[in-house]
Structure formats: structure tokens, C-alpha cells
């Protein structure tokens, strides 16, 4: 079944996120005052309230906190996961790769910015890494 990835209205909060993906990076704000990384992107630090934020690039490593396999009506399926980024924040992503179905809580995953427009997918780290979705 064809997947539909909705398009986004890019505003002052989200434009740097989408622009970085266009260049193959996952970027997020980091607080200049307390060092906290923020995802989703916001205009103020949720730890200290500072407005002094700088966009930085994530290392692209994460750990699976939970996941679900979405079953489509035509029999297709795909894996959605909550992952904890190495920088701290948690985000929702799609796990791709031939072995995506082997995902487990606690699994290590690596960023793969792909698609049109590009999105921050992840793949299971390890032997199968780099195979096509």
C-alpha cells in the first residue's frame, strides 16, 4: 500500500529542522545556558526557560524506547518507534530496512535521512545496516 507522508507548513519554529533534513542532517536546538537539547524544536528551553538557543546537528544514534507495527488494510505494514536520541530527547520515527521487523525495545538504531522530501528515518544498527528499505 502506498505510504502517504503529509507535507509540512514550515514556520519559524520548524524551518531549520526541515532545511537541515534537505541537507541530510537531523538538527535541533540546544540551550546556550544549560546545554539541554530540545526536540521537538521550540523557542524556549524547557529546562531553564532561556531563549538563547542554537541549532546543532544530532549524532544520529538512538535507542528504541517503544515501537508498533502499523498494519494497513491491504496487508502492508511498517514500523513506527519512539526512540531516545543520544543527545537526550525522545522522538517518533519510522524504522526502515529489511530487518525493521526485528526491532525490539532497547535496540540501537542509526539515522538515515531519506525520502522526498527527506525525513529522519532510523535503521537497526548492526549487520543489516545499510540495506534498502
Amino acid at each position: 500500500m502506498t505510504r502517504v507522508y503529509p507535507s509540512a507548513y514550515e514556520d519559524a519554529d520548524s524551518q531549520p529542522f526541515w532545511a537541515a533534513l534537505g541537507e541530510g542532517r537531523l538538527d535541533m536546538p540546544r540551550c546556550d545556558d544549560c546545554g539541554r537539547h530540545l526536540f521537538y524544536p521550540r523557542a524556549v528551553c524547557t529546562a531553564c526557560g532561556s531563549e538563547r538557543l542554537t541549532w546543532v546537528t544530532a549524532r544520529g544514534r538512538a535507542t528504541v524506547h517503544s515501537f508498533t507495527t502499523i498494519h494497513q488494510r491491504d496487508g502492508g505494514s511498517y514500523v513506527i518507534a519512539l526512540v531516545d536520541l543520544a543527545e537526550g530527547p525522545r522522538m517518533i520515527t519510522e524504522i526502515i530496512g529489511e530487518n525493521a521487523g526485528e526491532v525490539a525495545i532497547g535496540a540501537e538504531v542509526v539515522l538515515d535521512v531519506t525520502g522526498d522530501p527527506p525525513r529522519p528515518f532510523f535503521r537497526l544498527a548492526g549487520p543489516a545496516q545499510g540495506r534498502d528499505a
Partner: protein
Amino acid sequence: MNAPMSGRVAIAGVAESDLGITGRTPMALQAQAVTRALAEAGLSLSDVDGYCTSDLAGEYAPSVRMAEYLGIRPTYHDTSALGGASFLSQTAHAAQAIRDGRAEVVVVGYARAPRSWNPPVPAAPLYGPGQYERMWGAPFPVTAYALAARRYLHDHGAAPEQLAAVAVAARRWAGLNPAAYRRDPITVDDVLGSRMIADPLHALDCCLVTDGGGAIVLVGEDRARDLPQRPVFILGHGDASTHMNVSSMPDLTRTAAAASGERALREAGVAVGDIDVFQIYDSFTVTVLLTMESLGLCGPGEAGPLVAAGHTAPGGDLPMNTNGGGLSYCHPGEYGIFTIIEAVRQLRGACGDRQVPGAELALAHGTGGELSATSTLILGSNR
């Protein structure tokens, strides 16, 4: 306008609209519920001076729009929006308004008609904080609840059978409720054999999608004593939220019920063990297990075994969702108002085959969003 002498506020009328597949609009269903609730309370539209609702066909100023539709001119309005928990919160606010002498007869109403009324809405692009979840095109809210369910099963070494048991118990209650949409008995195997939607949640782990509306009428105790229905009093209330989008949920297995329930019970001066009957929003089977544990009915990981052993089903010692719940009775979208309606009917002793004998103290609990916001009410008939 004078504040009621006793300071207590009662629910004097409750009603549903037509339910199921009605062919009606959300406005019509809400109006039906309101006029029916007023009628059983022995009141009329001209008595209403306060109106509360969270939603009317997705438009802004819903209480103003609905007041116009009903031809009333309220001087107290509330549109507090906590998703499916909204109406419990609005009920508590209305009670305070009546105690303060700011209103005398307040109606809380709600309806949607997802089976009958679906005007075309142009697809809007993603925007705001939700875009980082919705960018994958996965179905919400079920994806969020499935993520919580997977984590719950993992943390407690539990099996999907425990989730399924929630749906089985709901269906047993629905079999006793003539107004329920689905009443045929089901088994754990039926649930596990139904279509997988978002692993580990199957179709029968998910609430119904049906048309329906509900309304409740609040008045001061003194006035309630002169009206036809046995008054049901609002004894305690708490609201809480922990996040909106599930990726911001601090703990996938603990909901805001821990805070809203604790506040409500403290205000009522009762313990959760004193409650005779529970009406807990069951958007999905997992919602019930997480809420039971967060409310303190049992410890972490203990809700599944309790439900599987039949404690929440008819005849059990924790009677829960006695109308059949959102899983089997009715679920138009924001189910919370029906938790209040069923709690009131149980406390009146008016539930027929599904009546919990001697029920005097009820807990009604709504959950909105992606396990995001909760509101808890403690209701009593004899205190």
C-alpha cells in the same frame, strides 16, 4: 442570585441522544441530549443560565453556537478543552460557579456524529508541534496508544491477552445495557483474532466509532431536593496533564490520572478503595490498565491480571464501565461525558440488569489526547 445554602451541587438530570448510526447532525444530537436531560430533571431550556461544551462540529466558540441553536442566552460559559476529559472538568467548574452564585442551572453537553456527518475538510499541511509525530502518516491516536501498550507489556512481561480481557469485560457489561452498540459476547480469542491495527492493539482493542451525544444538568442541592431525580453530588475533582504528543509523555505506563485522581479523592475525603463503581474512559484496552494503576487501584503490572480474573466484569468487586464503555456501548470521539452519565445512573440505582447493588460512591474518569490529559470526578448519592 443567591448561592445555595448547603454549598453542595447536584446532578439533577442526565441523558443520551440517539446513539449508533443516527443520520443526524452533531447539533441535533447535542440538542436532543440537552432537552432530554432537562426533561428528566423537571426543568426546561428557559431555566438554563449556564452552558458548557468543548466541541461543536470543530468550530470555535462552541458553547455560544450551541446556545444559539438551543435558543438560550447563558450568562455562564465554559469551553475548557481537555479532549475526552473535558466534560468532567467542565462539570467541576460548573459546580463551583453554582456554589459561587454565578449560575443556577448549568448544562454540560456534547455530541459528534462520525457515522452520519462528515463534511469534506480540505487537507491542511502539518504545522505546530504535532508535525513531528504526524510526518510519518501513521494513524493517530491509535499509534500513540500502541506505543504505550507495547511498553507496558514489555515492562511487566505481560501478554496481549491481558489487554484483550478489558474488551471482554466491557462486552459483558454491554450485554446488560440495551443502549449499547455491540452486545454479543466476545472472548479473548475473538479479540486476538480480530484485525491487527497497531501491534499489539487489534480492532477489538479499539473503541467504537459511533454517533452520540450526552448532557448533564447541574443545580444547587436545595433546588435539586425539589426536582424529580435522586440527586447525585459532586464530591471531588482533579485535572492534570503530562504532555500532548506521546513523544513528550514522561512515562508511557503512568498517566496524569495519578495526579487528577489523587486530587479528586482528597477533595472528596475518600480512598480509592471506598469507590463502589468506576467509569474509566476506555479509548483503547490499554487505557484502562494504565488508568487503573495510575489511580492506585492496584500496583504497576497488576491491572492486567485483575481484569483477566474478572474483577472489573459483572459480579466482580471492581465493577467498571458498566454501560459497556467506549469499547462496546458508544464512542463518538470525546467519550468522557458518558462516564458521568453512567456514574449518575448507577448512584441513582437506575441501571436495571447492570445495576451495582448499593452503589453510593462512584469515580468517573476521562482521558484526552494521547494519554495526555485526565480529569477525575468523585460522585456520591448519600453523603
